[in-house]
């Protein structure tokens, strides 16, 4: 395992050197490096429990860590296919390539960390290296907000880590965190600080502000990694703080709602809030990438709720949703990136009809959103289904409602780019664009195939998740052949897929038997017999859900709150500057006297 880190470390140096010579070469090298990482981590699947140390960093292979690392590596690997084609858009291509691999090292290290310090070091490495990548995108502001929100999480983790190490006297994760079974009060503090990091990184309401900014304006090749990959670091922290950290014991005495302790329930409510908020905001967006970013907020809510449930179904659903969302979201972002590469924009109202020029990209996007919206037979369905079953089994009706809202709301927002970017009228300026090049297509097809595979044979993954559940001592999800069984329901996705295919086949036959249709142009549509010659005018891409958006357009947004907070801090700084750091020495002398008097009066008593 240490070898993997050393290898990746060396390859990031190598990619820097290569990129200095020829940026594209270095970018191709990132593909190879991440593939090598992927394969070597995959080969570790049977060596659970192995511990290795590298200098003062200690690593251990765990099933969950392996699972997370595989997700991350998949996303990094597939997104790397896009790197070579964006090199000319970046002003620091060499830095991009090496930071790309550095953030990969950081994230994988996080998942394999055996002690808290390693955990934190890897966490921060991933954060700052990815921040420097985001910076190369369209907005410095975005990178900055990303860093600041992450810093809130980082600092609270650091606090939790250090306090844990101080109190428990050990830094080994499991040992240190289980110490709190005996110290619930400190435990609550540590839990709060710890989970805060998870919340900021997953992008849970109200810490979601960085997602739309960073995902929306990061280089197109890195947005999939941010959304599909780095957000999952937060999920890992959430996992640690509820599964490894004995959260249910620590809060054992608190008020329980349907068997869930109140603080954890409160966090779930936050998850539910981010589902609802993310959904509503995603519906409003005009930019495809920002829309997908808000969808990551919503999906983060599912993941958080699932993980916090710590039960047979929802927990498995949450863990599986991680993978499903990573794959689907990466595919969707990549598809949008491919479109942006050809058209130069991600604004939905400026696009349209791209399907007629980029059909494969369209298919990729379609399958991705089907998975993201949780429609069978794609992966997203299984995980959402498990979460629904888990929530309704416990009777957590508010959360279940939010989950349902997010699920059905997601039809609305995922359909929007589908309709506005890919379907509808093709603008003449995009008449001559071509399909994405084969390298990009390969990456997208890998993800698409994964989405489908996960949907049809979810048990491939659920088996691993069951293993994790057994390790944690909770009732594992039951996997029987192709059927997935839970306490209150079962589903056999292969059968569902077969039946769906059967229905599709029936109708296909019907369609083929009937007379063939005549192909007409896109502009030959019913327009109340009005002649329209400008395709752009006949394209419905702007304010897609106007009547619905109107219902909540006046709702306050969270970002201004942060801006105001930042402004208040600045003002406080200004006040301090003018009050205590005034250049006039008279004031300083006055202050000396004041302090002296205060001390003397105080000390005399």
């Amino acid at each position: 395992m240490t070898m993997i880190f050393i290898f990746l470390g060396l390859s990031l140096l190598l990619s820097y050197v290569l990129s200095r010579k020829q940026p594209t070469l270095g970018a191709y090298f990132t593909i190879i490096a991440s593939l090598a990482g992927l394969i070597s981590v995959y080969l570790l699947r049977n060596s659970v429990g192995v511990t290795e140390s590298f200098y003062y960093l200690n690593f251990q292979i765990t099933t969950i860590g392996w699972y997370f690392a595989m997700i991350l590596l998949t996303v990094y690997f597939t997104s790397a296919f896009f790197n070579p084609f964006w090199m000319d858009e970046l002003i620091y291509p060499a830095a991009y390539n090496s930071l790309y691999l550095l953030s990969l090292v950081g994230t994988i290290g996080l998942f394999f960390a055996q002690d808290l310090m390693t955990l934190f070091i890897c966490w921060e490495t991933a954060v700052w290296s990815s921040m420097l990548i985001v910076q190369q995108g369209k907005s410095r502001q975005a990178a900055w907000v990303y860093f600041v929100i992450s810093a809130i999480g980082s600092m609270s983790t650091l606090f939790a880590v250090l306090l844990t190490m101080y109190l428990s006297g050990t830094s080994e994760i499991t040992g240190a965190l289980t110490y709190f079974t005996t110290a619930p009060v400190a435990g609550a503090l540590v839990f709060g600080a710890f989970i805060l990091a998870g919340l900021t990184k997953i992008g849970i309401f109200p810490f979601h502000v960085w997602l739309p900014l960073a995902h929306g304006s990061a280089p197109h090749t890195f947005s999939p990694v941010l959304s599909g990959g780095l957000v999952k670091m937060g999920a890992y922290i959430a996992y640690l703080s509820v599964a490894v950290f004995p959260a249910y014991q620590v809060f054992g005495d608190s008020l329980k709602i349907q068997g869930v302790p109140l603080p954890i329930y409160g966090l779930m409510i936050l998850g539910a809030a981010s589902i609802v908020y993310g959904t509503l905001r995603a519906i409003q967006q005009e930019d495809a990438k920002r829309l997908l970013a808000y969808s990551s907020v919503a999906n983060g809510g599912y993941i958080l709720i699932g993980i916090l449930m710590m039960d047979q179904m929802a927990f498995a659903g949450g863990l599986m949703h991680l993978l499903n969302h990573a794959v689907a979201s990466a595919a969707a972002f990549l598809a949008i990136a491919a479109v942006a590469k050809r058209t130069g924009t991600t604004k939905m109202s400026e696009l349209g009809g791209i399907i007629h020029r980029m059909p494969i990209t369209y298919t990729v996007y379609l399958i991705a959103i089907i998975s993201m919206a949780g429609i069978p037979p794609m992966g997203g369905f299984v995980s959402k289904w498990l979460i629904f079953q888990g929530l309704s089994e416990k009777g957590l009706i508010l959360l279940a409602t939010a989950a349902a809202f997010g699920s059905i709301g997601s039809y609305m927002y995922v359909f929007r780019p589908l309709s506005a970017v890919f379907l509808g009228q093709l603008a003449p300026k995009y008449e001559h664009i071509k399909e994405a090049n084969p390298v990009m297509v390969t990456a997208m097809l890998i993800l698409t195939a994964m989405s489908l595979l996960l949907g049809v044979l979810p048990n491939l993954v659920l088996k691993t998740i069951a293993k994790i559940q057994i390790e944690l001592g909770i009732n594992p999800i039951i996997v029987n052949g192709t059927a997935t069984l839970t306490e209150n329901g079962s589903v056999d996705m292969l059968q569902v897929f077969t039946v769906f295919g059967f229905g599709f086949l029936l109708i296909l036959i019907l369609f083929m038997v009937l007379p063939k249709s005549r192909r007409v142009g896109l502009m030959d549509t019913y327009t109340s017999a009005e002649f329209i010659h400008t395709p752009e005018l006949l394209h419905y891409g702007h304010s897609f859900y106007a009547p619905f958006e109107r219902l909540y357009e006046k709702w306050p947004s969270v970002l201004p709150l942060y801006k105001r907070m930042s402004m208040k801090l600045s003002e406080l700084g200004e006040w301090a500057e003018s009050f205590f750091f005034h250049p006039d020495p008279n004031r300083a002398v006055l202050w000396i006297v004041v302090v002296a008097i205060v001390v003397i009066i105080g000390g005399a008593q």
Partner: protein
Amino acid sequence: MTLMNFIYGFLAVLGAFVFQTSLTGINRKVTARLQKRRGPKWYQQFIDIFKAFSKSSITHGWVYDFGAIMALGGIAATVIFIPVAGMQAFPGLDNIFVISYVLAVGMLGMAMSAAGSGNPWASIGVSRALTNMLAYDIPFMVVVFTLIYQHNTGSVSELASIQQGVGILGWNFFKLPLGGIVSVIALFGMLGKKPFDSFIAPAEIASGPMVEYGGKQLGMMFTLHELMTFIEVSLILNLFFGGGETLLIYMVKYAILYTFTNIVSGVMPRFKIDQAVTFFYKVPLGLAFIQGLLVIYLGWGY
């Protein structure tokens, strides 16, 4: 999974189509009678559909056709999942979430096909249809969650059979009256019956998603509508009205429920789409929550 399953499945689709299409024809007569007209023949709906199939057609590109096939295929598959009077082509696949999400495949296909036509009205219609879906599905889902919590099963056939055998008072509609009312209101939304039919407003947006369809695609859309109606009414029937002990009882109950929605919608005006959302989130969602809280926290309904 044997060949017989697939044959049963095919028969189920066919049967559902014939039954629901006849019922639609009868209901067109019912509506006509409401309006003091004679109305068409009871088999008029068949004629309409077959006529559409018999005409020539156009296509706006592959997604236009693919979407239509995917829509009807998805819906046909969903029909196969629906348990009718305890009968199922594929036993064990009748989880409520599976059904309601496979249904979404059809809807997505239709939306895709419609938007693929390049007609902005189609997109507007789709946007309204999806908004409408968000409106009616949430209250309905709350009720569904309550049901699953109460009976500890997500299987539609099991939920139906639990209600049978104790007469009419065993029905969830009477055990959970608020939830029952909510789901019947939601049924109006699902079926696109007035007052929730703004997404196909013919005069305003030229029948919305249907605007570009003609010929066989139009026929497919009509078929789709019939099958979708079958699924939705069956769902409510199974969940709240005890399904049916025998096929005949099932069909009679079904006919009554469907005719009821039709009669009510016959005297209704139309909500704007945002009004529909506000309505669903005020009244039915509120009722559904009250029902849910009563069941979950106060144990009512056991």
